[in-house]
């Protein structure tokens, strides 16, 4: 571990100013991801500004009918919040399918969104990795890549985003509230995350020193009938091979509206817009679900060892939509 300074932030403004002014500084939430990276040498900040105690620990109603989730709300607290459970069950399900109870008890909302890929080469400082050391190459392209991306990857990076929560938030169309030295801005989560292109070192569009303070969920009534399914190698405490967050509004056997996002398949949580388009107005049948899934996955470009993710994603989309629509139509 490289020596670093530690500061407990006094308020948002000073925390943002401090990190912005120092290129080697980083924000520290619960540290469940960053501290691992410090140990492994993946991250080497010279200053940690601890924001975990800043007053963003509330879940509050928004004027337009939505809900604001503070950046430091713990994953466990968010998952059991009655409003979240009732109005956005996919958020609760996504959180509870991730990490372990101990980790969820400390991990924060913003920290969850900012966690970095679990690609083994990203974590092994002895290997080339464009995300860790831009320009050094991508070891996963020809190496171990069973867990890697099938959508939106580039030859510079085939890593996937590890968050479950972010997949649910992407399906919902959540908006991230950000504080920077130039003031506050709102970023739709779909725009927060990047595809790797030729700069995979950037997971998000955030500038150095910008701090997430909250995540706003839209009203979205159909989200009361939503869920999150995660397929993984072990029944708990494992990252997604494929996951699906979905909400659906069905009337008389026809899909009126639908939201679908995929996890474990791309550098960012993958909003399945093609599938959504194919489903709107379609009958709520397995065939339609399968066709929609295939429309989305037509653009999949699997690697040597992860072609299985294409049918797995298709089957998971179908199974998730089937469950939701069956529940809706008694």
């Amino acid at each position: 571990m490289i020596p670093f300074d530690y500061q407990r932030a006094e308020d948002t403004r000073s925390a943002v100013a401090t990190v912005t002014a120092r290129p080697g500084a980083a924000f520290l939430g619960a540290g469940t991801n960053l501290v691992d990276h410090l140990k492994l040498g993946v991250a080497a900040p010279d200053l940690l500004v601890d924001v975990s105690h800043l007053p963003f620990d509330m879940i509050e109603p928004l004027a337009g009918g939505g809900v604001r989730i503070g950046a430091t709300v713990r994953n466990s607290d968010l998952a059991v919040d009655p409003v979240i459970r009732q109005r956005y069950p996919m958020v609760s399900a996504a959180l509870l399918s991730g990490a372990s109870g101990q980790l969820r008890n400390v991990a924060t909302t913003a920290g969850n969104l900012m966690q970095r890929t679990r690609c083994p080469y990203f974590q092994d400082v002895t290997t080339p990795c464009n995300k860790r050391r831009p320009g050094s190459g991508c070891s996963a392209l020809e190496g171990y890549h069973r867990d890697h991306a099938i959508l939106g990857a580039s030859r510079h990076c085939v890593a996937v985003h590890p968050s479950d929560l972010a997949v649910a938030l992407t399906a919902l169309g959540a908006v991230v509230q950000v504080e920077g030295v130039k003031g506050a801005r709102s970023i739709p989560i779909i725009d927060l995350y990047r595809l790797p292109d030729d700069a995979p070192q950037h997971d998000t569009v955030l500038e150095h020193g910008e701090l997430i303070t909250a995540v706003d969920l839209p009203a979205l009534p159909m989200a009361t009938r939503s869920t999150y399914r995660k397929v993984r190698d072990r029944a708990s405490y494992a990252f997604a091979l494929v996951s699906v967050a979905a909400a659906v509004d069905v009337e008389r056997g026809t899909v009126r509206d639908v939201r679908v996002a995929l996890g474990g398949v791309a550098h960012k949580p993958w909003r399945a817009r093609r599938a959504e388009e194919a489903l709107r107005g379609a009958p709520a049948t397995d065939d339609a679900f399968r066709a929609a899934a295939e429309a989305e996955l037509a653009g999949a470009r699997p690697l040597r060892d992860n072609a299985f993710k294409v049918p797995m994603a298709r089957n998971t989309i179908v199974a998730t939509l089937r469950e939701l629509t069956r529940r809706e139509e008694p």
Partner: protein
Amino acid sequence: MSTATRETVAGRVGDSAVRPDAALKVRGEFAYSSDLFADDMLWGATLRSPHPHARIRSIDVTAALTLPGVYAALTHADVPGENRYGLDHRDQPVLAEDVVRYQGEPVAVVAADHPETARRALDRIAVDYQVLDPVVDAELAMAEGAPVLHPECPGGNVLRHVRIRRGDPEATAEVVVTGEYRVGMQDQAFLGPESGLAVPAEDGGVDLHVATQWLHVDQSQVAHALGLPPEKVRLTLAGVGGAFGAREDLSMQVHACLLALRTRRPVKMVYGREESFFGHVHRHPALLRYEHGADRHGRLVSVRAEIVLDGGAYASSTPAVVANAATLGIGPYQVPNVRMDCWGVYTNNPPCGAMRGFGAVQACFAYESQMDKLAERLGMDPVELRIRNAMREGSTMPTGQVVDSAAPVAELLRRVRDKPLPPPADPTDPRDLPGGVANTTRGDGVVRGVGYGVGIKNVAFSEGFDDYSTARVRLEVLGGEPVVSVHTAAVEVGQGLVTVQQQIARTELGIARVTVLPADTGVGSAGSSSASRQSYVTGGAVKAACERVRDTLCALAATRLGREVGLVDGKLVTADGAVAASIADVLGDEVIERTVEWRHRPTFPLDPLTGQGNAHTQYAFAAHRAVVDVDVELGLVKVVELACAQDVGRAINPQAVLGQIHGGSAQGLGLAVMEEIQVVDGTVRNPSFTDYLIPTIVDMPPMVVDVLELADPHAPYGLRGVGEPPTISSTPAIVAAIRAATGRALTRVPVRPDDIALAGSASRPVPSRPEVPCD
């Protein structure tokens, strides 16, 4: 003279005596080796090769030594004895010299006043590597022209080849099934990473406190590398957090001693979890090709098999694993015609060696898969087919050895088959469904499957190895009460061996107060806590030493009392059953101490050409039935129930027996569906418990266990080794159940979601077999 009723002490053989470490471990108060501490101690750290194969041009430790707080930085040039160690033969450098042969091979060690200082010092050591192509495919490593990794090995990269020929190797059969199977690299995944504390002694020697499996084999290797006589290297067992074979080879032992002797300060070394993956050997990945021939009634006519075990960079216990895979590789079946060839091969992959099941695991997955395939071909019930061919007492092994104690293979199979099947899963409780609490399945596309497996394992060391244990038993009177102390070097790895020793002493002497002294090298060797052997061999030694103490006591009493007496339930009793005296009366201030070296029946080497010979001293058997629910759309498996039947000869401690069966079955489940060290081009890609998956409580189902106690007349109390058999048969039973649910061939473990249900998943290319040299 009193004729009062005698009380039998509690906690004897056959009781579920309470373990002294149980409550401490549950409360988190047990002192493991990683908790060791000494005043003024330094912290050691290890610089490891990032490359699986490289030439070392130079190593420069100068910059490390200039860091304040660093007391020593040592390389191979600082090893005072021979820079070699190894269990079977000494082919492994303590610190690399001119070549590194696997990723993680130790190159240098440092000692500093803080662990972080030690790690920073490692960053300052300059090693100039010339990277070489790694040899990573075991079959290619055997081929002509492959780079030779150990020039001194007469067989090239073939470390050992065991061949077994029985009957007519060219025998033909009416029905033939062939199959090719693969087993991935499994980790022992013990809880307590490698750790220990070396303390320099005034006599120029060193005292090492360490978590290990066999104190004396460590002692001899450490002394050899240090250039010290064994008596100057004294080992004491520290708290062991599991072993499963991973502590048979040295890890930090020599390194800590080198640093302690150099700095004249106590030196502690503790690996982290990631380092631990590089700090011990793993289970051999295997390629297994089988051909089973049977008549149309399902009676086995012949088995032909070839097994290639990837031994990795150094020998470790590969030669013995090869012999086990070969001699046990036909399974618990009667087969008149056998041709078996098994090779252990050097590569630049992580070294592989001992892990629970020791060669029998890999073979069992293959031969049981073959039995299912044969049953399907014959249209027979898979259990019926197994029973029809089951070995029994008096059967002959492919090695020609006659199985001369209970071999209830058919009975074990019937027992697991006849258990009631579990009810269908509750679709409202995700914990009962594939995918667990991730809400993955609602019961759509979930198919139930049932599968069976039965396995065979040898107990204790084989092939003529002088396998013994030493026990020193002392009887004295303290505070008016007789007290027994038992001293052995046998290692408690968590299996309950301390309690077993107490139970045996209580049984033999009828005395309640039994103290088991810390295991150390102050008493003779106990052999390894492996091969399911300690209750048998150290148990036998403690029993024999107690008998000697008892005989001495009775002789003493006869002299004092003027008549013949025996020791019954802790009292000296005349022939008519009357109590003549108490032990305290007879013994007074005298102490009786007896030390016994005890051996099981000898074993013999295998004939190098035919593999014939009485290589093993005892066989053990277990059978499993697995019930699984598979979400065939998503490829997820939920093991619903594991039923196991095992013959243990005599359950010395029934609760501990169940613990072994539960734990062993769980380890087999892990191999069946999730555990694999991912090695790509010789480098480990998942060295953490986040990425190397072991079963959790959500994955491991309830078990139904039948324990048979069919005494082996050759063994103390009739017992049969317990620890390994349940690991062996649970894996094939689970995979068979998944096959039954899915219809997929599933020829490789671990089985993963991609292997089960999903069209379009990439299959692993299998290279064609090159010509292999024979050693």
